[in-house]
């Protein structure tokens, strides 16, 4: 088989797997921005917190990184509820979400980054797990387990959340919050409480996404920023709050970045998300599956 065709297939496969991981990173934003209309640009910082939680669990206690983040889930959920409570009292209730609310999250992003630097330093950190390293070779292409495991974790998480949102009372209330808060009050549900739960969930996803991140690549405190453009590109392209749209968008971006990295060099990959984001905003702000 032709070398460049082989390269192409491998790039597409790893792009797909990478895209699955991007869906895990973006699902929190799909909830907070897409459903709750809270522009949490600090989400990548929470993801990094997740990475370091997995790192601590793995290196200090010798626990599997994904298991570590599952243990950390409740803490992240509470952290999310707390963040929303502050956001609600200080900004949403005052109707000052845009200028000061955005700046608040920007400040959180920065503070988290600096605190991580002060705690863990600026060196790259990695975790140990049996699935980091080996690949399954399927003849035409290789499936690196390092990418496959995060892909599977991401898919389980996204599908689980989708089922939660569409089948449970609270899940449906979260979706209703996005549409009509008045109707929600008629259902005898407190919109603030529902939003607090949903925001807690969105931050909880960051724990798992963070574990996936540190499995895929070594982590240092400032790499979270690279993901801001990515996650928002994915969520906007996916059509704000639509999970299927988000997964398609995540895979599209994963493949586009993987192809760019293969054929132009990895240092160009971060620019792909921005290009996609700008084109989407300029041409079709409602996203691929938008109305």
């Amino acid at each position, binding site marked *: 088989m032709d070398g460049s065709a082989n390269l192409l297939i491998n790039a597409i496969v790893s792009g797909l797997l990478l895209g699955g991981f991007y869906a895990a990173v973006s699902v929190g934003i799909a909830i907070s921005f897409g459903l709750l209309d809270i*522009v949490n*640009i600090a989400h990548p910082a929470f993801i990094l917190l997740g990475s370091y939680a997995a790192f601590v669990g793995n290196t200090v206690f010798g626990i599997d990184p994904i298991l570590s983040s599952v243990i950390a889930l409740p803490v992240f959920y509470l952290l999310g509820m707390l963040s929303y409570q*502050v956001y609600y009292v*200080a*900004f949403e209730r*005052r109707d*000052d979400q*845009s*200028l*000061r*609310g*955005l*700046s*608040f999250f*920007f*400040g*959180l992003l*920065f*503070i988290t*980054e*600096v*605190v991580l*630097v*002060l705690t863990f330093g600026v060196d790259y950190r990695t975790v140990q797990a049996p699935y980091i390293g080996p690949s399954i070779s399927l003849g035409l292409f290789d499936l690196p387990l390092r990418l496959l495991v995060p892909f599977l974790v991401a898919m389980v998480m996204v599908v689980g959340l989708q089922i939660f949102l569409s089948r449970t009372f609270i899940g449906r209330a979260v979706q209703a919050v996005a549409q009509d808060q008045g109707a929600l009050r008629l259902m005898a549900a407190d919109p603030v409480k529902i939003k607090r739960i949903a925001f807690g969930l969105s931050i909880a996803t960051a724990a798992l996404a963070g574990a996936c991140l540190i499995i895929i690549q070594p982590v240092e405190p*400032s790499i979270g*920023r*690279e993901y*801001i*453009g990515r996650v*928002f*590109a994915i969520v*906007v392209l996916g059509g704000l709050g639509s999970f299927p749209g988000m997964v398609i968008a995540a895979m599209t971006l994963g493949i586009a970045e993987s192809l760019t990295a293969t054929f132009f*060099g990895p*240092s*160009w990959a*971060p*620019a792909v*998300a*921005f*290009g996609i*984001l*700008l084109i989407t*905003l*300029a041409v079709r*702000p409602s996203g691929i599956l938008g109305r």
Partner: protein
Amino acid sequence: MASLVDKTAVAAAPGLRGLPFTLVLIAIGVAIFAIGRWYNNSYAFFMAYVVAQYIVLGTAWNILGGYTGYVNFGVTAFFAIGAYSTVVLHKLIPAMPLPVMILIGGSLAGLVGIGTGYLTLRLRGVFFSIATLALAVVVQTLITNWDFVGGARGAYVLRPRVAPLIGGEYVQYLFLLMLGMCVIVLATARAIERSALGYGFAAIRDDEAAAEASGVPTLRLKLIATGLSGGFMGMAGAPLPFYVTYLDPASGFSLNYAVNAIAMPLIGGTGSWLGPVIGAVLVGGLQEYLRVTISSAVNVLVAGVLMVTFVILAPQGIVGLFQKRKR
């Protein structure tokens, strides 16, 4: 803007008119510089340069953020465009005077601002903010991949030993230029507050649909604000290569610039030209003090923590706290 809140259209605007105000600014600038020359301590000049740079950056951010309500997170992109345009110009035409480089860098950054704005300002404000965040990443990617300006390795710029025109150390010249930019930016900001443009910006910030219905060409005004704001940020960045003498993407695109440029107006007060100045002097001074006494890691935290504290507890900033007391 607080000054608009205080005065009404009925009473004539209090305070000085545009030209006298600018002359007072120039006088203050000259006085500061004269004191610096008399004191003649190069560390003081290096420190004062940073504070002056943040006055320019903070005021530039505030023209868009504080006046129209559109949040630009891509401060580093505009700042670095200015800085790297100087690197390029210095390589191509070493004899080019720095003020010309400042103008070119500022124009480039202003154009990038207008371009980004043109693509995203029709949408809700948060999309513009998100686009500017991503813009910082992409400009950094472009610079990192551009070998001519040193790529990821960075570029060295030789700082001349002696300042042109005024003599003395070169950093004095850099500081003088930055002071000049402070005068230009502050005079512009205050002129905007008192003009039809300022009223248009305030209308956009309060309610865009109502502004359109009142005849305000919202898109054009937002583009003017983005262009001015981005342009001034580029100007503030243009002398940076001579200040640091070694510029690489990691330091040129440091998040500190963005956090400081956003935090300072929010801490000082976004309503008027005075807010960013107060924020820059206080926070900039405090950071410098902490950097010397404790450590540089703590000093970068200060701006972030203060910003979050202020947006939660004192949304009108320091200026707002004083106005409340007056009433």
